[in-house]
């Protein structure tokens, strides 16, 4: 591999972006890759998920020994990125500190629209271009996974050069943003959208795909998360629909198995509820299928720990996301 692959994970809030980003990093590492997973929103979601100390502005190894690969994690914040940037380009050692003292950094990164995003993505760009220790060894990381902002903001976040177009016409921020945008649009980048099978998130996902496509940003997979497995097979489903599997029939089986037959009514009602939810899921799945995007599905697990992350990682690999 000659360049660092970039996986951007977006999605509606709370659908599982952080979980999927980390699972994807583990999946890639499982293929023997050296992977960096970054977060950019100052929430320490990765650290919480992996149950490690808060991540600094410095890459830390968080997992290794999975099929020979390694996962590093990094929390990128705009303030540190700006200080680092000033230091690199202007050798603003002391003046950089002065900037901090005047509250300028806060000011510049929150007020000038787009500057924050350029700083965050600029850091990713810098890392993606790094080479390994030895000469000619290729990139330092095989892949970078970004736990990115939600769908509503993702296009602006990745398409930074448009965002800062109104700002400085020349100068380093402008140059930087053009390079970042070029990287985001390149073949080595994939933007994955995490969703759940509900109305609003699915609609947002479809809108997001259209927006990304219009901005020439490469859409990767739609990762459908929190999928509830079908527990009733076709025979049971139609038996409930037709009414042949009713309280009486169920009650008889329960009694013969030594259980309380009077709970049959509840069980049948629960079965109907399950079928109804499955039908709603299916309807949303059909909507997603109308877009061209490839999809992968992850089940709703009972809690998320390292074991379940590895389970999700395996499923992402099987479905070709990693």
């Amino acid at each position, binding site marked *: 591999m000659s360049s660092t692959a970039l996986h951007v994970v977006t999605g509606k809030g709370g659908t599982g972006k952080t979980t999927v980003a980390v699972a994807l990093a583990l999946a890639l590492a499982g293929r023997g890759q050296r992977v960096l997973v970054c977060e950019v929103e100052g929430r320490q979601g990765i650290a919480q998920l992996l149950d490690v100390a808060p991540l600094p502005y410095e890459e830390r190894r968080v997992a290794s020994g999975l099929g020979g690969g390694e996962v590093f994690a990094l929390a990128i914040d705009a303030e540190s990125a700006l200080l680092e940037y000033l230091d690199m380009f202007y050798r603003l050692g002391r003046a950089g500190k002065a900037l901090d003292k*005047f509250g300028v950094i806060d000011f510049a990164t929150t007020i000038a629209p787009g500057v924050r995003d350029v700083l965050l993505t600029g850091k990713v760009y810098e890392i993606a271009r790094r080479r390994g220790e030895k000469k000619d060894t290729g990139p330092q990381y095989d892949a970078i996974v970004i736990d990115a902002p939600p769908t509503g903001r993702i296009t602006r976040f990745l398409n930074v050069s448009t965002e800062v177009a109104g700002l400085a016409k020349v100068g380093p921020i402008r140059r930087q943003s053009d390079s970042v945008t070029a990287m985001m649009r390149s073949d080595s980048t994939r933007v994955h959208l995490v969703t759940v099978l509900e109305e609003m998130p699915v609609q947002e996902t479809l809108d997001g795909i259209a927006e990304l496509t219009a901005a020439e940003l490469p859409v990767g997979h739609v990762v459908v998360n929190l999928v509830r497995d079908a527990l009733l*097979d076709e025979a049971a489903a139609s038996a409930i629909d037709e009414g042949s599997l009713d309280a009486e029939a169920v009650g008889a089986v329960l009694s013969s198995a030594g259980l309380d037959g009077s709970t049959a009514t509840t069980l049948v009602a629960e079965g109907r509820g399950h079928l109804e939810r499955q039908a709603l899921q299916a309807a949303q799945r059909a909507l997603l299928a109308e877009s061209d995007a490839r999809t992968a599905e992850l089940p709703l697990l009972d809690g998320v720990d390292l074991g379940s992350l590895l389970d999700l990682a395996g499923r992402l690999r099987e479905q070709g996301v990693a």
Partner: protein
Amino acid sequence: MSPSKSRTAPAAGRPRSQGRVVASRDAAGHLDVDALIHDRSVRIIVCCGSGGVGKTTTSAALAMRAADAGRGVCVLTIDPARRLAQSMGLTELDNTPRAVAGAGADGGSLDAMMLDMKRTFDEVVESHATPEKAAQILNNPFYQALSSSFAGTQEYMAMEKLGQLHGQDEWDLIVVDTPPSRSALDFLDAPERLSSMLDGRFIKLLLAPAKGPARLLSAGFGLVTGAINKILGAQVLSDVQTFVAAFDTLFGGFRQRAEATYALLQAPGTAFLVVASPEPAAMREASYFVERLAGDRMPLAGLVVNRVHDDVTDGIELDEARAAARRLRGAGETETQVAELLDVHVERLITAAREQRERDGFARAHPGVPQVPVTALSTDVHDLEGLRRIGDLLARTGTPQG
């Protein structure tokens, strides 16, 4: 229950403080939402919570129920989903409350509006500055960025609008939705962030770089402005300077108004409802928020646990259901189908137990804060009927599915 003083100070090993709790519980110990909306001394209800938990839905449903119960209600919604907005007649974005057709009974009525933050900001500027000065501010690129995209402007303007609506004195209950921010705390903190930015040292320096003690810093200041010009381009800084000079005389008024609204939130006629989904992150946020309300002496009504899935407690128990499913599977056609039904039951029990754990955890940390669960409906809530159903669930007078 009457509002009482802050009960217990936070102490190790003790339940954490929950400050003033203003609502009562029903016979089953749940938050009594009907008692809250029938209490005419309650004039403002604020629905807070982390992103996507159901703040907008809860505020609209609550406002609807209060109007149906005879109160003159105004609901201030923020970014409602398109279909919900349409069903409430919120098609015109004119930043003023409009009557919702089909809502209200017993002399009650419902007006609804959705916040237009930029317009609210513009209107404040226009009403506090001379026309020339207002025009100068409104046309300033920096102002335009600030009023349409600064993180915190929405919260600030929600507070501003609440202050305005309250001042109009046309409604006897105002229900307030809060912006879709990550953390519920943003609603309380963001206005302060914006105003301290506008009031900040840096802005002061921009205004008068060579006066008073700032003179001593002016060498450093030159470096700073130099760096900003290099990075952002000189235009940005000069836009900011123009804006700050024009805005300076308005600033005091802005701050005063924000402070007045903040005080309104602490007043006895206000009640906060915290909304959370039964998941660790949302419940953690709810917990922080409850503690913060206590710290700020803001009156709390209780916690709405929204989108609870499987509120099952009856039927066959978990282990028994699992064992029976194992025995029955493959023993015959109907037996296998019953085994599958038992699988469904087991899944529901597991979900219910997980959600209950979250609710119990919160209850242990905040024993004085009443909760009410709201079942997840099988579809989105996007019409008045849906809002009424959520209202029924909030007041525990309805059945989950229909």
